[in-house]
């Protein structure tokens, strides 16, 4: 490989990892809900779209930086998620029906309402936030004059990545160190046993859905400076979120992080070497290959290694 080719490869890997960090955050919300509720939330991307609109209007009307909007949008999304779980999903868990997938179809309905309302109120125009640092970048040659190759690091992408990492670490602390976090994990493992141990599973489910929505809301705010915004954006990110969840393992937080990074790098590689339009196909080829050859997700490889099997 010539140095130019290495440069392209390294640059692709860097952008893939930066993208993967955000994907991981989107996937974490999904995997949390899936682990505790045992349902797929097909309104996940739409929730993110709502958060992005909140951040967008905060920026346009009050000049709040999208990164600061994380602290506004995430609590709002938490509240919205709590409401959805309390008043829409919980009643459905009680009704008897032929198909157990009713709750999944319900989330589809919620997603439809959200994206359609967004189209009505905000029109289907593509919008972007004109932040001052949108095109800023750090160049390797600025720091290392004699560098044989030139690599760049986009500032908003890197900041978003750092934010994503911080939120992920905070979530890890919450889930492993606090009482509520432990109760959530217990509910995910075995709801009945958790109930016997005095865990309020109903409350945990409500909190989990809120938490999942809050996480994806935060991801939306982080994505806003580097992406554009339109009402139909949700569907694509719902798909990304579940590809990540399958890639990792369902309900496994570590799996979601690895899944997000793997998907980010893989998409970046497809976009560079095959073509932009094929990146979504690459995503699904990977998804199907994972279902067929690696049903336990990437996490199952790690476990095999640990036990030396």
């Amino acid at each position, binding site marked *: 490989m010539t140095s130019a080719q290495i440069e392209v490869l390294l640059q692709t890997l860097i952008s893939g990892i930066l993208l993967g960090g955000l994907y991981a955050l989107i996937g974490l919300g999904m995997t949390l809900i*899936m682990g505790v509720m*045992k*349902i*797929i939330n*097909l309104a996940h991307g739409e929730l993110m779209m709502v958060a992005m609109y909140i951040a967008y209007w905060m920026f346009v009307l009050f000049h709040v930086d999208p990164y600061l909007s994380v602290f506004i949008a995430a609590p709002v999304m938490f509240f919205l998620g709590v409401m959805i779980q309390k008043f*829409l999903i919980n*009643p*459905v868990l009680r*009704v*008897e*029906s*032929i*198909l*157990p*997938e*009713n709750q*999944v*179809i*319900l989330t*589809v*309905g*919620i*997603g*439809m*309402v959200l*994206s*359609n*309302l967004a*189209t*009505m109120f905000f029109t289907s125009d593509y919008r972007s936030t004109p932040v001052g640092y949108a095109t800023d970048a750090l160049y390797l040659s600025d720091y290392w004059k004699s560098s044989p190759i030139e690599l760049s690091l986009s500032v908003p992408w890197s900041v978003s990545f750092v934010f994503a990492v911080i939120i992920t670490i905070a979530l890890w602390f919450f889930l492993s160190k606090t009482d509520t976090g432990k109760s959530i994990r217990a509910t995910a493992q075995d709801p009945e046993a958790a109930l016997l141990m005095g865990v309020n599973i109903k409350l945990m489910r409500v909190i989990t859905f809120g938490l999942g929505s809050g996480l994806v809301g935060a991801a939306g705010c982080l994505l806003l400076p580097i992406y554009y915004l339109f009402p139909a954006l949700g*569907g694509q990110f719902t*798909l990304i979120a*579940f*590809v990540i969840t*399958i890639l990792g393992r369902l309900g496994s937080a570590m799996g979601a992080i690895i899944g997000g990074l793997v998907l980010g790098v893989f998409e970046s590689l497809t976009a560079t070497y095959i*073509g932009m*339009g*094929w990146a*979504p*196909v690459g995503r*699904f*080829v990977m*998804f*199907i290959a994972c*279902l*067929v050859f690696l049903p336990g997700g990437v996490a199952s490889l790690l476990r095999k290694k640990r036990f030396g099997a």
Partner: protein
Amino acid sequence: MPFVILAILAALPLTGLSSYAMHLVILVVMWSVVGMAWNLLGGYCGQVSFGHAAYFGVGAYTAGILYTKMAISPWWGVPLSIPVVALFSFFLGYIVLRLRGPFFALATLASGEVMRVTAENLVDFTGGTLGIMIQERTWVEKTWYYYIILLVATVTFVLVKKLAESKLGYYFVAIREDQDAAESMGINTTLYKTLALCISGCLTGAAGAFYMNYMGYIDPNVVFALHDISIITIMIVMVGGVATYWGPVVGAVIMVLLAEWIRSIPGLGTAHYTFFGILLIIIIIFLPNGIVGDFPKLKRLLKLQKA
């Protein structure tokens, strides 16, 4: 009862309905076909597919590509889409049918999206996002289109009814109720699930091929659409009634008329998805088995059939 309805439906064009009314009737019948096909797989066999747009689109593209590449009438697409879609659903089923519940739903959802993106990118073969347009329409009048889709619908209805009442139908229901129990009773679940998927896919594909002929234009975002095809299909069956013979028909009537009605209200034109979503939420919370399914008398009949 079914013969009376068929006779009324067959006499419908003679009453001199306007072209617009005929268009709505044709759409209702076409969506009933797709709904009944979905119902066979989702309602009876319990495999909730979120990707019926894949079969619909493959059927439509079979007709379209026959026209653009082989220069023969796209009507050949209606019969020829059946082997094509059968093969396609067999391969797809090989991958997705090993999954259960939410995983199956996700995998089918992804399969529909894969087909859409693939059709967008294979520009030489499918025409990409430009789509396929049929230059000359077979008939200006809608009467013949109506009779053709009515024939397809009749075949679909009879086929689904016969299947559901046969041994095969009981296998399907057994798989829906408890796949492990069905397996241990000696039912080859993989075989029967594949069978249900192939039949369901073929019927959907035939409807797709009809759509190509009727509308005269398709592109990947129309026929492989997630919301406009896959989700609407599920809604039709959910609203009408899961695992009922008439449910998809009732659902198709409601959905098509509702969509047209909302579109005709000034200022609310783009809001039809909000109403669909709210309708879906209400139906799932209060009528989980759909209008036909929770119709008390029919419910009792269903229970008798199952017992």
